[in-house]
């Protein structure tokens, strides 16, 4: 991994179209500004983790879960 040191207000450029700026440094938190083309996907890493966890959980489901659900849904 490439590691760069930046000061407040400084930025890095990725390719020709992506720019990341250090907007604010407050204690242990860093606020970053990201300028990128519309089609660039930008997400917090936790989003991917949450989706992976949800997928893993979903893959454990069995048809009996669905029959339980089906029974339940018929009740009013």
């Amino acid at each position, binding site marked *: 991994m490439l590691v760069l040191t930046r000061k407040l207000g400084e930025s890095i450029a990725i390719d020709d179209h992506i720019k990341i700026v250090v907007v604010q440094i407050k204690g242990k938190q860093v606020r970053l500004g990201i300028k990128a083309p519309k089609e660039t*996907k930008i997400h917090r890493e936790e989003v991917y983790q949450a989706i992976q966890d949800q997928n893993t959980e979903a893959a454990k489901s069995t048809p009996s879960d669905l029959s339980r659900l089906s029974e339940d*849904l018929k009740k009013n």
Partner: protein
Amino acid sequence: MKVNTTRFGELQVNKEDIITFSEGVLGFEKLKQFFVVDPGDSTLILWMQSIEDSEIAFPIIEPKIFKPDYVAKLLPADMASVDLEALSDAKIYSILTIPSNITEMSANLKAPIVINNKKKVAKQIVLQDSKLSVKYEMYKDLKSYIVSYSSDDSKRTTVAEPQTISAKEETNVETTVSPKRENRNEA
């Protein structure tokens, strides 16, 4: 071809029903080929079964069933990633999590499965909309939909009819989806 599955036994799958996820599903990147199984029950939930791993299948549902205003806003790059020219060629599904307390069941609205129906390629696309939840609880909405659906006799025959697990129906979703659901998808 014959496919072995832990949940449904051995199934006959037509080549044209195989859906290719070139990047896999998040957390299951090695699995590239799936097909849709319709158990034909009243829940409207389908399964996306892996061909490569008999144990892996995800319960999926069309999110418009429980959330009619749901829109998967696909960027041009998203469309390109599944070789999609028009949204009308796409099928959108949410993966469901069904915990032991079923009232806490949830759907992943943030990262729907987008299937290009014509080319049979698909991707789990992470949408940019930050308001969409990975764990959207939808038990109540699904229940109220199903209650109103089954009490309406005019719509009943197409889906409420018990469908046995025959290989033909399982692997061909199009024939088992009711006209109502098709309309909702295009809306």
